[in-house]
C-alpha cells in the first residue's frame, strides 16, 4: 500500500532511551507545576494585596504569559536572560519557561475561582479572629484550589506538551529531545515520532486519570 519501508524494529530498539526521556518530561512537567502553582499563589496574593505595584507585577506577568507563544517565552528565558549574563542550562531554561507560562495561566484561573467564593467566607474567618493570612490559607485557598482543580489538570497536560519546545534551547534529554536526536542520526522520522506520540498520549491520559482519582480522594465535600 505504501511505497515506504517501515523499519519499526530499528525505531523500537530506541524505546528504552525514549522512556527515559519520558521520565525527564514528567519530571519537568511536575516541577513546573509545583513552581507555577506557588508563583501563581504569590501573584494572587499580590493582586489581593491592593498594592498598586504588586498588582501591576501580577498583571504584567499574566498578560505576557497568556499573550505570547510559549516557544517565545522559553527562548527568551535562555537567550534573553543569557544576554544579561544569567546562564541557565537547557533543563533550567525549559523548566523556568514552562513554569512562567503555568504561573500566568494559573493566576488567571485562581482569579476566576476566587470570584466564585462568597465574600462571607473571608468575613466569617476574620470574625473568628483569624488574620488575613490565616483566612486565606485555611479558608479561601483550599476552596480556590478545589475550584481550579480541573483547570490545573489541563495546565498539567499543557506542561507535558510544552516540554516538546525544549529543542530550541538545546534540551536533549526529554522525550522530544531524545526523539529528535535519534531522528538526526537515523532519519526514521515517522516511526520515531509515532512512538513518541503514543508515549505522549499515554502520559497525558495517565495524568487526567490520576487527577480524577486524586480529586476523588482530596475533595470529599
Amino acid at each position: 500500500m505504501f511505497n515506504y519501508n517501515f523499519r519499526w524494529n530499528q525505531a523500537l530498539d530506541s524505546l528504552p532511551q525514549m522512556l527515559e526521556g519520558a521520565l525527564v518530561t514528567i519530571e519537568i512537567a511536575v516541577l513546573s507545576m509545583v513552581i507555577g502553582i506557588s508563583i501563581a499563589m504569590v501573584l494572587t496574593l499580590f493582586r489581593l494585596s491592593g498594592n498598586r505595584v504588586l498588582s501591576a507585577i501580577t498583571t504584567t506577568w499574566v498578560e505576557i504569559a497568556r499573550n505570547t507563544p510559549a516557544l517565545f517565552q522559553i527562548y527568551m528565558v535562555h537567550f534573553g536572560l543569557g544576554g544579561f549574563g544569567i546562564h541557565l542550562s537547557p533543563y533550567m531554561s525549559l523548566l523556568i519557561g514552562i513554569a512562567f507560562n503555568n504561573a500566568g495561566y494559573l493566576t488567571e484561573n485562581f482569579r476566576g475561582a476566587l470570584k466564585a467564593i462568597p465574600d462571607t467566607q473571608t468575613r466569617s474567618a476574620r470574625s473568628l479572629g483569624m488574620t488575613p493570612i490565616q483566612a486565606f490559607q485555611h479558608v479561601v485557598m483550599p476552596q480556590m484550589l478545589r475550584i481550579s482543580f480541573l483547570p490545573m489538570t489541563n495546565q498539567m497536560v499543557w506542561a507535558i506538551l510544552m516540554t516538546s519546545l525544549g529543542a530550541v534551547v538545546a534540551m536533549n534529554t526529554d522525550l522530544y529531545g531524545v526523539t529528535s536526536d535519534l531522528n538526526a542520526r537515523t532519519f526514521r522520522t515517522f516511526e520515531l515520532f509515532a512512538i513518541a506520540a503514543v508515549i505522549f498520549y499515554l502520559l497525558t491520559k495517565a495524568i487526567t486519570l490520576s487527577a480524577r482519582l486524586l480529586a476523588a480522594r482530596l475533595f470529599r465535600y
Partner: protein
Amino acid sequence: DKLDDIIASGTLRCAVVLDFPPMGSRDADNNPIGFDVDYCSDLAAALGVTPEVVETTFPERIPALMSGRVDVAVASTSDTLERAKTVGFSIPYYAFENAVVANEGVEMANWEGMKGKTVGATAGTYEAIWLEGKVKEWGEGEFRPYQNQADVFLALSQGQLDATVSTVEVAEANVASGNFPGIKIVDKAPMVPDYVALITLREEYGLINYMDLFINQQVRTGRYAELYKKWVGEGVPADLTIPGVYR
C-alpha cells in the same frame, strides 16, 4: 526519473542552510547568498533550469529531501555511512577542517581543554555527532545540541557555552564579523577532514551520476577555486581527492 523530472519542471529546488556562513547566509535584503547558494545556481544552470533555494535547518535538511519538498540538498552534508542508508551521496564537493572555538573567558590551550566543559554544536551535524561522542567518552562535561549555528554562537558569545567545534570557515567568518564578541579560535579539532557532498534520494542514480560529473567539472573549470576565493578568501581550496583509494 528525477533528473528528467527536474528538467521537465524547469526548476531545481535546493535545500540550503542559511545560517552557515560563508556556505549559506543572507544579505542585507535577506536574500540567500553563499558558496552553497552559488553551487545550487551553477547546478541549475548546467541543467538548464532555474534554481530555487529552500531554507532548512541542519536537522531538517534530510527530512525535507525525503518529503520531496526539495530535489537536492546543497547543504554541506557530511557523507557518513549511517546517512548513506537513507540518502544518496555524490562525490565530495568540499572538505572542511574543524576548529575549536571558545569563549574568551575560558582558559583553554588546545582542543583537549574542552574536557569537562559545557560544549555545544548544531544538532544533527558531523561535528555535533563527533563532539557528543567525545563528551560521552570523557564522561564529564555537558553537550548541548542547538537547533542552528546562530544559536550556538550566540550561546558561546553570551558565555552559556564554553566552547564549540565548527568548520574553520564558519569559525573564521564569525570571529571576523564582529557579530559575536568575546570568542576566539583555540585549536584545530583532531577530526578526519569533513568531506561534504550533494545529496538526493538514494535511488536516483541518474541524478547522482550527473552531480558527480558536475562537481568534477566545477574543479576542472576553475569555478571551484573562484568560488572559494569569493566566499572563503585567499588560500588553497581543500583537496577533494583521497590518496590511495578510488572515488
